């Protein structure tokens, strides 16, 4: 049993099954509490309820499939800790960039982000970093904001 629970596909199957059940319960409760009372077949909650049934069935199918998976295929998907850390760092940098956009405006925020991200990804030539960080936001600004009339953050 513990062996099965260590299998990611089994865990995902359980998650989909639980999500399906939760969506079903949520749909029924929302239908009952709905401010606009309609027949069930006209209700906005009919389709989510159908999805819930399908999700539960697919969750069960994933569970079954996961239980049949061989140890070999399970080991083929070992997590790469370094890769995960890199992704987390990149995602945090993008989140910080999005947060800075309304504070700093597009040009300085993008220049900072481009320089930081290029450094993070291994670019070490300072002239290259400076050129891209300065030129790219200016070119994008000219192209989108001035030429195409697209608003930038």
């Amino acid at each position, binding site marked *: 049993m513990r062996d099965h629970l260590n299998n*990611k596909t089994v865990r*995902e199957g359980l998650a*989909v099954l639980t999500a399906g059940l939760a*969506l079903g319960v949520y749909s029924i409760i*929302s239908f009952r509490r*709905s*401010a*606009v009372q*309609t027949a069930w*077949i*006209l*209700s*906005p*909650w*009919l*389709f*989510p309820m*159908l*999805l819930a049934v*399908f*999700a539960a069935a*697919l*969750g069960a*199918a*994933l569970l079954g*499939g996961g239980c049949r998976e061989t140890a070999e295929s399970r080991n083929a*998907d070992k997590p*790469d800790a*370094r*890769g*995960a850390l*890199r*992704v987390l760092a*990149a*995602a945090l940098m*993008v*989140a910080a*960039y*999005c947060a800075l*956009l309304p504070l700093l405006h597009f040009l300085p925020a*993008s220049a900072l*982000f*481009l320089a930081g*991200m*290029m450094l993070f*990804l*291994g*670019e070490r030539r300072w002239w*290259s970093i400076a050129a*891209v960080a300065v030129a*790219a*936001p200016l070119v*994008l600004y000219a192209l*989108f904001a001035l030429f*195409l*009339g*697209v*608003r*930038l*953050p």
Partner: protein
Amino acid sequence: MDLFAGMLPYFIDLRFVLLCFAGAAAGLFVGAIPGLSVSMATALLVSLTYTWETADALAMIMGVYVVGVFSGAISAILINIPGAPSSVVTTLDGYPLARRGEAYKALLYAAVYSFVGSVFGLLALGLLARPVTALALRFQPMDYFLLSLFGLATVGGLSSGNYAKGLVSALLGVFLALIGLDSVVGTPRLTFGIAPLMAGIPTVPALVGLFGFAEVLSAVAEGTADGALGTVRREKIPFRTLRKELPRALYYCTIGTLVGALPGAGTPVAAFLAYGEANRIVKKPSRPFGEGAVEGIVASESANNACIGGALIPMLTLAVPGDAVTAIILSVFYVHGLQPGPTFLMRNAASFHAILAGGLLGSVFLLLLGLLAAPRISRVVAVPRRILLPLVTVLCVIGAYACSNRLFDVGVMFFFGVLGFFLRRRGYGTAPLTLGLVLGGMMDANFRRAVSLASTAENPAAALFLRPITMTLLVLTAATIVLNIPGVRRAVSRLREKRSA
């Protein structure tokens, strides 16, 4: 013959040809840049061409439309960001091919078969407008629902080796499409009190996240960020090799034209259906599907461009647009005092011929620009990934923000990027989620409309299903699902082995 005679004056009108070329060049530019879309460009053109002659406006708009639908494939192939939802399927094989250093080959096939698709669709528009419209008119809400379900059931099998995972991804897409104000009753659904979600999940930022930002994260995770993609080599592909796909392409074009003629179905459905058919009928692809099969690019590109002609059929004859761009083109007609509808072909034959002539000229420019300009644009893949990835991220942010000028949309892009990254990592695929997201709203509305209509009939089940079109779609959908169940697949392959033995 009358059709050609009607178009001839436009073919020899230099002004018309030049305006169409200007539109085509703009379409190439708009489609190739992630974040800009054909619908955005067409919408901008509506205001620009307000004071123009109708024929001039139609020339430019058809140029943008035809080439813009193709050029979505350029970014799909080169940087894995589809310029338009119609090019989502092209990323499945186009990008893997580009990563092998065969971007030129992918672009060549995309350009040639987009041209084939466009010409096929436009000829179909000219020749078959009436019969196809008659068929589309007979579609009931249940048929639209089943057609969408068939699309989802097909695409579920395309994403990965695990059918259940593909369907989970599609289901997640449909679920996300249900978020927002309900279109029938008008009450909020699944918004959890978040005000910007009342309008639903914005599709373009979601697509930019799923296909742009997710790719950036995947590249970062793989640790390939330090390396650069190989330079694009111009390779000679004999015409004999290129034309081999033509018979199958004509079949995909037929799918594209028919799907395009169904209001609401649009280019992504056509591309997905054609790709599913390619999976089924091509026994020995040049490479496995999803790993750089040119047959996949041919299916996607010929079908989505054939949709153009198909989508114009209900727009011109019923005033019901087939997709977003034709909805905008419809407004061009209103601006110029024209009234599309059943009498349009009789009353406005000149405008009908202008549309056809503009589309066919646009197709020729598509081929020229696709063969001559697209490979030059492809130099972007030679940029080191440590420089390209940050730039793609900034483009993703711009593309997401430009849709509605809301930072909320940038957040949506970020969310879908992370979601797409995890879905890919665990083999769920992002293509089924995309189709679910695009079709979910239509499925919900049509299903409820069908059930509601049937509930008043004497025999609700008969009212729902006992129609030839419905039965056909139902059988197709059920067969697709059943034949993809692992146990059934194993039994079928055992049967095949026995037979061959």
